[in-house]
């Protein structure tokens, strides 16, 4: 606790091409985070993030000049310490999965309440993952089904454990980490580590479903 209070406010960089939305987020985060900069397109975002080196970048998925993915992919190699939290109105699976696989630590929708957004920013700053119920649903979809026979899969990456599935299902049902911890009778830290592990798998897995997933879904 004392460590928390000694730490300076989280330095947040906002990237969104809708100025109206930018000013809304700025007002919501006022007093809870330190907004160090804003950008409305990929190029200025990359420049601004490199110049200000924020703790957390709140990143819109749809941006002129290549989208949120392009920002992450450009900035991450040189600034691995900057974490990205994707923020979008889009619920399209390929957008959400795409930005997570590019390296975002979480995804929340723009309708998120102000307090929840500030909490999500804190959470990703501390290195944890932030899953909205919808993202949890997408991941369950992506890792659903039997592994195709004969497919060369890395069990470490290409499958989620029963416990992780349980956590994801509770997330999709609208449970908070705290509620999940109580329900599964584990610590919040354990829940967080399960979610982080799922995030890692989502980012690194070469599971067939993940690459072809969006197309598959459209065909259903």
């Amino acid at each position, binding site marked *: 606790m004392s460590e928390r209070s000694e730490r300076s406010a989280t330095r947040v960089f906002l990237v969104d091409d809708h100025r109206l939305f930018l000013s809304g987020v700025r007002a919501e985060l006022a007093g809870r985070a330190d907004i160090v900069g804003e950008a409305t397109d990929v190029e200025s975002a990359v420049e601004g993030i490199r110049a200000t080196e924020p703790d957390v970048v709140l990143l819109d998925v749809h941006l002129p000049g290549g989208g949120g993915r392009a920002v992450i992919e450009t900035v991450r190699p040189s600034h691995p310490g900057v974490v990205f939290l994707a923020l979008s109105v889009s619920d*399209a699976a390929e957008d959400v999965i795409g930005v997570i696989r590019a390296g975002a630590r979480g995804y929340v929708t723009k309708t998120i309440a102000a307090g929840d957004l500030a909490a999500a920013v804190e959470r990703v700053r501390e290195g944890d993952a932030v899953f909205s119920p*919808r993202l949890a*649903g997408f991941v369950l979809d992506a890792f659903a089904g039997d592994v195709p026979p004969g497919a060369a899969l890395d069990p470490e990456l290409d499958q989620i454990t029963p416990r992780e599935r349980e956590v994801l299902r509770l997330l999709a*049902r609208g449970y908070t980490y705290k509620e999940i911890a109580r329900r599964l009778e584990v610590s919040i830290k354990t829940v967080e580590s399960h979610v982080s592990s799922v995030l890692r798998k989502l980012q690194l897995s070469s599971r067939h479903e993940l690459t072809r997933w969006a197309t*598959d879904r459209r065909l*259903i």
Partner: protein
Amino acid sequence: MAGAMASTPRSPLASLPPGLARRRDERVVAGVCAGVARWIGVDPLVVRVATVILSLANGVGVVAYLVAWLVLPVEDEDAARTVEPPAGAGRGRAAEMALGVGCVTLGTLLLVRWVAPFFPDGLVWPAAIGGLGIGVALARAGDGDHRWRELAARLPGNPVEALRGGAGAWVRIAAGAVLLVVGLATFLATNGAFASLGAIGVSVVATALGGALILGPWIARLVRQLGEERRERIRNEERADMAAHLHDSVLQTLALIQRHADSPPQARSLARRQERELRAWLYDDRRRAGDGAADTLAAALDRLADEVEADHGGTQVEVVTVGDCPLDPGVEALVKAAREAVVNALRHSGAPEVSVYAEVAGGRVEAFVRDRGRGFDPATVDGDRHGIARSIVARMARHAGRADVTSAPGEGTEVALSVACQPEPAP
């Protein structure tokens, strides 16, 4: 080498005397005579007459001209002098060009005949007409000097390439083809080839080859254009579809929201409803097609959320669905039970938000309706709530399903529903 000529105006021979170049701006055929004349410093007419005389004398003229055409660089130094001809001038140029090619062919053949007299007129005249035809086909008029220059630069390179493009090009190509065919036919006829049946085949093949050579690129382009036009039409239809949708739903909703600006819950639920609709329309093809098409669990749950939100202003129903299945009676009962649970939660829990999660796996649908409201103690519930809980349980039981209500005061409520379902529709 010809290709290099076409793409760069520099001489391929480093040893060429400086200043010697083709003059496209003064040319009759390719500007060789004009270039040489300028280099020597005489009137181009002198060089041209000399070339013709040389050609008729022993053929040196023609050969020298062709070699110079290939070797000499193109000079455009006097671009300022090259006044853009009026739009119609290209047509005159085209005729000039055609005549030029025809004359060169005729001259060459007359020369060859003079040197080696065994070529009869039956070859000379048809070939001359054919040359004229090629000239007409290659010439593209009507686009001003630029096109013309482009063509001239390409001529020694790939004549087929030169056939492409240009408004009305097909008229010239057709005229060229006719002339070619006439040339070929005359040739075959005067040589008595039609007498033998085999020669007819030859003439047909030759004619077809000539036509294909000239028309091939044009046909290919036509096909490509048709494809592009179709794609464009599809795009336009999509755009019109989008515009219609935006008008019917989004603009209407925005107008309604403005009218309800003093009533936040109503404005909010309008915005919410429109958001859901637009989202489904943009991102979810199954649900977009949903109206009359095969009904599925996911579509039914989305509709449920829609309707409940509309009936209970200011509330939110978040639906997450994993997998999908057709809406058979059992699944329909589950959706109805879920709806009761949602309405119940909104009415009694005091929470403005309800989460619905449904998962299809292993031949079963599981659905959870959860709120974070005040909750209740299942042991001491009042009659109304118990009744609803019971009706949900009974409804599920009729379809061999299950319903469990979990709640505690201050902890919110969760209703878990499950029922067997048919496998997911095949893709």
